[in-house]
């Protein structure tokens, strides 16, 4: 069975600032990032849908240690964002001082951007991550 939405297609859209997800035609759940099956009912009756890219911060951390090859990025803030459509995705948060963020971030409304991770010797090529900034 073929994927309705592969990571490659998802990345290509994200690079154009479009966030793609999968809408389940059986239970209406939106799955994002994409999977083979609906993340609630496990059905495969899925269609690609463009999401608003807006949501609120569910949780966050500022990381002061970075994996090999990414030391120059630290410190950086990682967020899990609950999208308007219900799904959660992981990305980075910009427009803030990573050393000064606190619990007040939780619930803040954010909108999507993107940034390419060029990849390293273990990643089989590049990755694209959502880069969130405050909506208000």
């Amino acid at each position: 069975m073929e994927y309705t939405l592969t990571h490659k297609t998802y990345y290509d859209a994200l690079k154009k600032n479009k966030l793609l997800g999968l809408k389940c035609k059986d239970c209406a759940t939106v799955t994002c990032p994409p999977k083979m099956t609906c993340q609630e009912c496990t059905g495969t009756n899925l269609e690609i849908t463009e999401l608003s890219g807006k949501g609120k911060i569910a949780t966050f951390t500022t990381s002061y240690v970075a994996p090999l090859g990414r030391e120059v990025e630290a410190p950086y803030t990682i967020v899990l964002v609950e999208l308007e459509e219900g799904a959660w995705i992981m990305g980075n948060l910009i427009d803030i001082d990573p050393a000064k963020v606190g619990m007040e971030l939780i619930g803040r409304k954010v909108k999507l951007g993107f940034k390419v991770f060029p990849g390293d010797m273990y990643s089989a090529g590049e990755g694209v991550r959502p880069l969130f900034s405050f909506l208000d």
Partner: protein
Amino acid sequence: MRRVAIIGGGHTKFMFNSPQSGVEMLAEASMDAITRSNLKPKDVQAIYCGNVLGDFSEGQGMVQSYLADDIGCFNVPASRFEGACASATMAIRDAFMWVASGYYDIVLAGGTEKATAMGTPLATRTFAMFSDGRYEYPSGINFPGIFAMLAHLYSSKYNIPLKKLKEMLALVSVQSHFYGMKNPHAQFQKEITVDQVLNGFMVSSPLQLLDCCPFSDGAAALILASEEVAKKLTDKPVYIAGVGQASSGKLSAQYKYLPRLRAREVSVKQAYDMAGLGPKDIDVCELHDCFSIASLIAAESLGFADFGKAGELWEKGETKIGGKIPINISGGLKSKGHPIGATGASQVYDIVRQLRGDLVNEGRQVEGAKVGLVDTLGGDGVIVNLILKAAH
């Protein structure tokens, strides 16, 4: 299914920069396990081995096969298990299945890791491989980052001010060091204070250095045997009364359920149901405290506290010897160390010794302990649970 017992074990000292290879460490632990079980290498019919990063840390794959040859278990089937930090517990669960089924009578299960040889940047990179590489690693997520995000979520979801939560978390690390000091196998044998925890280097907010387990080298191994064989070889068999295992997807796919980990709830229910026991029957527990917050999350899913309330267990001393549920009396991953491929075998080794009453001399025996629970977590969602029971 036949009853299966653990009849002997071996455990190296956990440490930073071991002078030995991963195979050497596991061979020493394995030979101790074989000898203490009154067996010879030729008696071992199969080997189940946890090892996660030997490929990266010393350019060594297939450690299970070289181990078998090194200790003279020539040509036995030897299998490697990879479930990140839960690898060895997975190996023990499978070893249990093969003996319970009647296919083998005597097997060796254990694990080894030489993580510190990688140095911190590569170790941080490889440990980050146990999160989703396509959708989450591009954001720079790493091992502490996952639990750091769960800590903030825990504070928010259960309405515990972060400052208060941090103080509770500090008590978890302080207790681990208190018991680790008494464990000769532990990597750290020194007490720490709440102030030291709260003033440590920030690793991934809100987790500071002493909220985090270390990178470690070490190995542990156990011999599992059928009840019939076990009774001939030892007066103190420890039976595996229940097993459970479950998996889950990337952190974002666990969304609404977080900070609870559904896989743990599924896994421990399997183990409790199989043993015909519940949380109230557990006398001593080793749970997966890779980060201080992980202990609270685990204790709740295992049924020792209501959700959002586990911090009170440590505050009230209920997790110490003499408390309601003694937890991580080995020092836990925090103080004993966390050589990831070996950790599950180390947890089982310590519970077996508790149930045999072997820890009086180390000053950390839970008196009269008859039933123990092991809980091991790999990455953001592989869980294995084992319930062990003393013979008498």
